[in-house]
């Protein structure tokens, strides 16, 4: 069974006038079908305003579809009693770590989720231990989150979600505010969770390099899924991506330019190693 499945998903934002009457409808997501299997690492690309975040907010019922249906682990998000169960299955991490951390000590922050689920104390501690371990933040457990770097804070935020033992974690531009090292730390932590714990990951990002290790990439434009495939399939279509205000990793762009200049190279080169192999051997 799919962990996330959507059929003909549509969402409209309503604009209200001064009297509180709905005066305008704006479609943010339209006609989206999704089939995401457990354990997959999915990336979603799209320009600002393409509908990525709106779609992501449907995956843990922060938004409910205007039309169509989305199921999380088999549960229809529009069915009220399922709401809390859905949010336990699908956790969300946002862009700004400072908006998501509430505890004054790292381990307390991570324990906030399971405590709210009514887990007995010992259970909370074992979850906190496990989650901090999983993101490599055990050494910082007694620290104040304020004193951490951006990448470390974001890993604490991820541990906070992990402590709820979700099946799926949705990350909306988790690296946008981080420096290169912070970006690397967070990405490594997330891939590790995906590999070791089998957590399904849905990563929304503007950094093309972060996408190359995904199982599948979705590209959104004007609320529609306009491209989908493996990273190699997607990044082979350089001109199309540019038309959607996107880009390709620098190594892919370089290979593409060399190819245009007459060098024989395969399509969709994604890593330095692939380019070296193709050029030097």
């Amino acid at each position, binding site marked *: 069974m799919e962990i996330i499945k959507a059929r003909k998903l549509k969402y409209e934002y309503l604009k209200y006038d001064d009297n509180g009457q709905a005066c305008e409808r704006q479609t943010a997501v339209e006609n989206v079908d999704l089939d995401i299997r457990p354990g997959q690492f999915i990336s979603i690309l*799209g*320009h*600002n*305003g*393409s509908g990525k975040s709106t779609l992501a907010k449907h995956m843990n019922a922060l938004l409910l579809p205007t039309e169509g249906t989305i199921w999380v682990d088999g549960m229809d998000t529009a069915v009220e009693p399922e709401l809390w169960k859905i949010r336990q299955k699908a956790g969300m991490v946002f*862009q700004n770590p400072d908006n998501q951390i509430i505890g004054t000590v790292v381990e307390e922050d991570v324990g906030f989720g399971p405590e709210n689920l009514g887990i007995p104390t010992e259970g909370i501690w074992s979850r906190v231990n496990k989650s901090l371990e999983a993101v490599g933040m055990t050494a910082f457990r007694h620290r104040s989150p304020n004193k951490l*770097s*951006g*990448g470390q804070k974001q890993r604490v935020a991820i541990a906070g979600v992990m402590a709820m033992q979700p099946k799926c974690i949705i990350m909306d*531009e988790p690296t*946008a*505010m*981080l*420096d*290169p*090292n*912070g970006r690397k730390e967070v990405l490594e932590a997330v891939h590790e969770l995906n590999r070791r714990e089998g957590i399904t990951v849905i990563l929304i990002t*503007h950094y*093309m*390099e972060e996408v190359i290790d995904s199982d599948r990439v979705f590209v959104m434009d004007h609320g529609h899924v306009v491209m989908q495939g493996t990273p190699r399939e997607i990044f082979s279509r350089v001109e199309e991506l*540019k038309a959607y*205000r*996107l*880009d390709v*990793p*620098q*190594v892919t*762009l*370089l290979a593409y*330019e*060399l190819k245009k*200049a*007459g*060098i*024989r190279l395969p399509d969709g080169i994604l890593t*330095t*190693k692939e*380019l*070296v192999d193709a*050029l*030097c*051997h």
Partner: protein
Amino acid sequence: MSLKLEHVTYTYNPGTAYETHALKDVSLEIPQGQFVGVIGHTGSGKSTLIQHFNGLMRPTSGVVSYDNEDIWQEGYSLKRLRSRVGLVFQYPEHQLFEADVLSDVCFGPKNQGLSQEEARERARTALKQVGLKEKYYDSSPFELSGGQKRRVAIAGVLAMEPEVLILDEPTAGLDPKGRDEILDQIAWLHEERKISVLLVSHSMEDVARYVERILVMNQGKKVFDGRPKEVFSHYKELEAMGLAAPQITYIMHALRENGLPTDLSAITVEEAKCSILKALGRGEK
């Protein structure tokens, strides 16, 4: 009209257990008209540094001067300095507050004492310079997209006609096209109006493409200061500081190690392409 720091040190909470040196003995000069990139990991002192340039922070010791005048001497007008040295903070769109775009951009020039008419003229010019279409001038800034809001916020600083423009990560959170558009616009302003630009960025690729000089900050100290090619040739040291070189640098090194005589100083896709084509004998492979 150069900006100058001489032996500037800034200490948070001096004399307490929490004493930290955010800047340590930093000296540098930025001549009028330069396009400078500032890189460093989070907490390296970049933001503290740029806030010294327009007098938002006062050095614990050392001298900050603009146009050969010490900005902390008696009687110096910091207000005037701040309209000559414009600072665009990170996520500047969070500072938009007016009911419509044009009024928001007018806020700066009006505070400089310009008349309503002059302020509106300045605002229009600034909005044109950041490439925002005229049909949005009467819209609420809150109805615009992320990239458009960012432009309005930058226009708000440009409308004061600064001689130096400092931008703290102006492209954070923008899509690739939006990133390129904003940076192209800034490069154009730099060319056209001959203003100095200081660009704080986490993207080595962006810095490599646009700036003529890079300052690298680490633990409150200026550790490198030079042309991009020079600075990025220290990529091993940069990595040790939590930074990196542009991806192209790594590709060029990998190709060289595998027997292709590439130019190791290439830092942009264009340079790399030329170098590889040359190494392959103009691509007759």
